């Protein structure tokens, strides 16, 4: 009789556990949905395999999402391209952080950029060079980074805002 009662107690424990687990998972799902919609941190629900297969240091962001983030003004854009002397197009308000002048560029923007800010890095479509800048920025404590998929060319093609800068401008 005792073992029967003990067996019933164990069975009861399992059924209570499953029922409560179900409720907790529902609560978690709801909390996740609310958290994801409120955060806007740029981590899309669907992962881009390219970013992970290439082991990029930061996630890729598609043009459409990047344009939304641009309109919201929460992200700073970073132009990583090597520039020549002449005029060039870039995303309005972009900072210039380049491989060869990395330390000087960071120093120049020291008063305008903090490690708490969020950045979208873009180049000319070459993911590796942008990834290199992203890695170096992460080493300096800048953790909230995204890489623009397709670079400036894709941004322009989709009708994104462009500003023209002169060669000497930073």
């Amino acid at each position, binding site marked *: 009789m005792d073992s029967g009662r003990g067996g019933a107690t164990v069975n009861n424990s399992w059924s209570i556990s499953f029922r409560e687990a179900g409720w*907790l998972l529902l609560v978690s799902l709801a909390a996740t949905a609310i958290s994801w919609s409120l955060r806007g941190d*740029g981590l899309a629900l669907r992962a881009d395999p390219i970013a992970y297969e290439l082991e990029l240091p930061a996630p890729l962001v598609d043009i459409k999402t990047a344009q939304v983030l641009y309109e919201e003004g929460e992200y700073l854009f970073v132009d990583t391209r090597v520039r020549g002397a002449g005029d060039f197009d870039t995303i309005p308000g972009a900072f210039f952080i380049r491989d060869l002048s990395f330390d000087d560029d960071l120093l120049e923007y020291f008063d305008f950029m903090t490690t708490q800010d969020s950045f979208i890095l873009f180049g000319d479509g070459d993911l590796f060079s942008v990834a290199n800048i992203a890695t170096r920025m992460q080493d300096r404590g800048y*953790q909230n980074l995204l890489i623009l998929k397709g670079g400036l060319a894709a941004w322009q093609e989709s009708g994104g805002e462009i500003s023209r800068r002169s060669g000497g401008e930073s």
Partner: protein
Amino acid sequence: MMGLVILLLRLVVGGVFIYASLDKLAHPQAFAVAISHYHIVPYPLLHLSAHLLPVVELVIGAALILGLAQRGAALIAGTLTVVFMAAITSALIRNLDISCGCFNTDGGHAVGLDLLWRDGILLLMCLAVMLARDPGFGLQRFFRK
């Protein structure tokens, strides 16, 4: 006495899961990268996992500490622990030199046998809470008839 022991176990397990969730909640991108290093979760589910798992850890941790739905929380905690142990075992078998991603998305403890021992103890604690006749003091007592 048993209730006190179970309460202690709940506080430990709950605390571990809440602590584990914090860095992952703060850095979902880095956590997604940590998950991807195991090469187990398919890409369509990768970011969803990175979003959902820390929230589940936080919710079950809070439930265990507060004493609400603690059996269910212990069941989920135990299941997650088994999943983590399977992932770590898989990484060890495939000789993957990766960080566990358990508590810290930036570097952190490398996968190893010691993690399996740790998780094994955690699993036993979860089972004890789930099957205990007296789950110890908790808020759930105030909702009982």
